[in-house]
């Protein structure tokens, strides 16, 4: 019971939402509640979870990162080009990571030093990074990724898909950063009240750089998982990823005003979105209605949030 008693009120609420949605599907679709299908849900949620982990930290620090999809595409096409050209895989991965960090640093510089608004800066970045990816590839997908690399992202350990394990490792790291390190406190302080944080000696600029660079890094990680699975990198990949990630963070309790959010909540938020898609697909519901359900879930989650947050 210690786990349950330590579970924060808000996270417990998100978990309850997941259980309810899961229960409905379990009743309606007999194949939903089976081991392979549940692992499938986790695997399908893993890319969004990757992105959402970084997004949650950015949102907590009072920002937003709309560039994640294009940043993922850019690091994907760079890493794929390097691999196809025969560069060793670890070096190509390092290249992808550097692209993610550099894109994050660019957004952070404009926001933290230039004093521009995060929404506008990353909206600009959204077009800019996508354009660079398209120009770099001439709009063509890059095929022929090495089998050795693909084996890592398509493999599994003890029948748990590797992408799920990769996300789990990053989630634990993100949780530690947010809850156990000064940087995590700085995220919450800068997002909660930037001026008070500055006066209290919080390194505000460094904190914002950390948030956007982690978000860029997570976009690169998500890109690697996806190109490993597909065996190709497309410059158009990652379209609308930012919206799924923001939705998962919000369902999980992150406040878009900054200062509040939860890693565990975000993960559950990702699984809720994944479950919804998986369950509705099992029930042969048309994609249009899946979109409808996603929209309704996001709004309902926010309404419940509003109604219960006063009592906390």
């Amino acid at each position, binding site marked *: 019971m210690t786990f349950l008693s330590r579970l924060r009120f808000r996270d417990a609420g998100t978990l309850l939402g997941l259980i309810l949605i899961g229960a409905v599907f379990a009743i309606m679709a007999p194949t939903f509640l089976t081991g392979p299908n549940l692992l499938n849900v986790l695997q399908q949620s893993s890319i969004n979870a990757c992105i959402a982990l970084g997004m949650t930290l950015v949102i907590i620090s009072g920002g937003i990162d709309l560039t994640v999809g294009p940043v993922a595409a850019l690091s994907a096409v760079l890493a794929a080009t390097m691999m196809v050209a025969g560069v060793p895989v670890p070096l190509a991965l390092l290249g992808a990571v550097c692209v993610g960090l550099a894109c994050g640093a660019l957004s952070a510089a404009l926001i933290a030093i230039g004093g521009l608004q995060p929404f506008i800066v990353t909206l600009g970045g959204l077009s800019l990074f996508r354009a660079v990816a398209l120009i770099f590839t001439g709009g063509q997908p890059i095929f022929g990724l090495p089998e050795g690399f693909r084996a890592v992202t398509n493999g599994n350990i003890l029948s748990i898909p590797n992408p799920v394990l990769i996300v789990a490792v990053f989630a634990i790291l993100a949780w530690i950063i947010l809850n*156990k390190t000064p940087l995590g406190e700085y995220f*919450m302080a800068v997002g*909660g*009240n930037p001026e008070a944080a500055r*006066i*209290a*000696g*919080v390194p505000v600029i460094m904190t914002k750089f950390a948030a956007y660079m982690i978000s860029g890094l997570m976009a690169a990680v998500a890109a690697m998982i996806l190109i490993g699975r597909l065996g190709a990198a497309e410059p158009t990949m990652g379209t609308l990823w930012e919206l799924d990630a923001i939705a998962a963070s919000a369902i999980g309790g992150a406040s878009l005003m900054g200062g509040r959010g939860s890693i565990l909540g975000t993960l559950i938020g990702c699984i809720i979105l994944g479950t919804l898609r998986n369950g509705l697909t099992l029930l042969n519901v048309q994609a249009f209605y899946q979109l409808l359900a996603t929209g309704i879930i996001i709004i309902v989650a926010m309404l419940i949030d509003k109604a219960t947050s006063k009592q906390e």
Partner: protein
Amino acid sequence: MAPRLSLTHVEKSFGARKVLHGVSLLVQPGEVHGLLGENGAGKSTMLNILSGVLSKDSGTIEIDGKPVTITSPRSASEAGIAMIHQELQQVPELTVAQNIYLGGALRMAGGLLVDRAAQEAEAKRLLAPLDPNIDVTAPIRGLRVAQRQLVEIAKALRAKARIIAMDEPTSSLTPSEFEKLVTVIAGLTAQGVSIIYVSHKMDEVFRVCQNATILRDGKLIAQVPIPQTPVAQVIETMVGRELAHVTHHSHATSRVMMQVNGLSRGKAVQDASFDLHAGEVVGIAGLVGAGRTELLRLISGVDRADSGTVEVEGAVLPQAGPRARIKAGLGLVPEERKRDGIIRHRPVTTNIGLPAMNKFTQGGLIQKRKLKARSEELMKEVNLRPFDVSKPIGSFSGGNQQKAIIGRWLAADTKIYLFDEPTRGIDVGAKAEIYDLIEKLAREGRAIIVVSSELPEVIRVSDRVLVMREGRISATLSGPDITEANIVRNAIPAS
């Protein structure tokens, strides 16, 4: 004649916590009625019930003998109650006239269009007896706080308010602006308007009120006629204990801790130079806008100076923001606690630990237990109420938030404390605790600057007083020269 306002046996609970225990309030027509009590005594809850922000659980409200039901700010306004908040609730970009008619615009063309000309003419008429110099077509952001307050009063008159509740109306006013407000209040009461006056400043309460209702812990303790009751008795009734009468002890040494040389920024601060010694408390007095807050912000690195230097123990500090200044041993306790001080949703512990996270970190991880133990130790010393350092700081009263913000610098081993209006919006009991804390810091050899608009406060805590006028230090007073008369004479611009 029926009383103007009669609250009988009003009760209110938040969840399981009862905040008003059958409180009653009786205000006569044309009376200025003080509502007194420490923070948390229930004054704000009462005002919120009167102005329709909160609804009461039980009890009755009568105006001029007729029972009224107040369910929303609009119904309160219709019942003739207006509220002037401490933090004025105005839209800065709108004009004076638009603010006066906010929520009740004058219409024309069958209600489709706002009749701005009529609004402006009417606003001008309402403001004429209050301050004819206010331009009703100017945006409200350009006005001084005192003028904005008069605009709020005009708005109350526009709504035909018979009861105006003023919450800490003088917290940002200069003494001469207060005198002006006294005249305005006299004018209102002469027309039969009743005023509910909430303030922590006893001299003001005794100046303007005829009667006062004293609350403590959500209970009605007494209703007293004001001029006839001794100040000390009123305070004792509020606090529920006798406050020790204190005299000032100086702990100043000859060791110079900080030197400020020619610090300037625009017109706000010009060529400010002074020394601060270990164990010394230097007060900075002056009118609002004299550059006191700006000077503290320059010293603490929050704003960049155009020229001039700050030296701590002989070393010139670089121009590099608050973080570097904190490392050099300075700490600012800002005036606007909500805006510049607290991280509302975070617990007291992390609000305390924020500047000195390295002291509570090992191997990259925060040692939460150590932080909590240190926070509890510090907060026990300053008597944090309620004593729970894990609660979000936003759930504490102003005085207790202030204790946590001061605790933040104690935890960081700060040597030089810069207090900006340390007791603004803080009740009498917590005030005394903060004075004691300042004296204790001085006794321990730290150096302290206190900016304050309350002269009794400056005089009480300071070893030396710098008076600022229009951005410059106009006088340095020490010992027996520290008197209200000397401070005021040097603070007022020669015109």
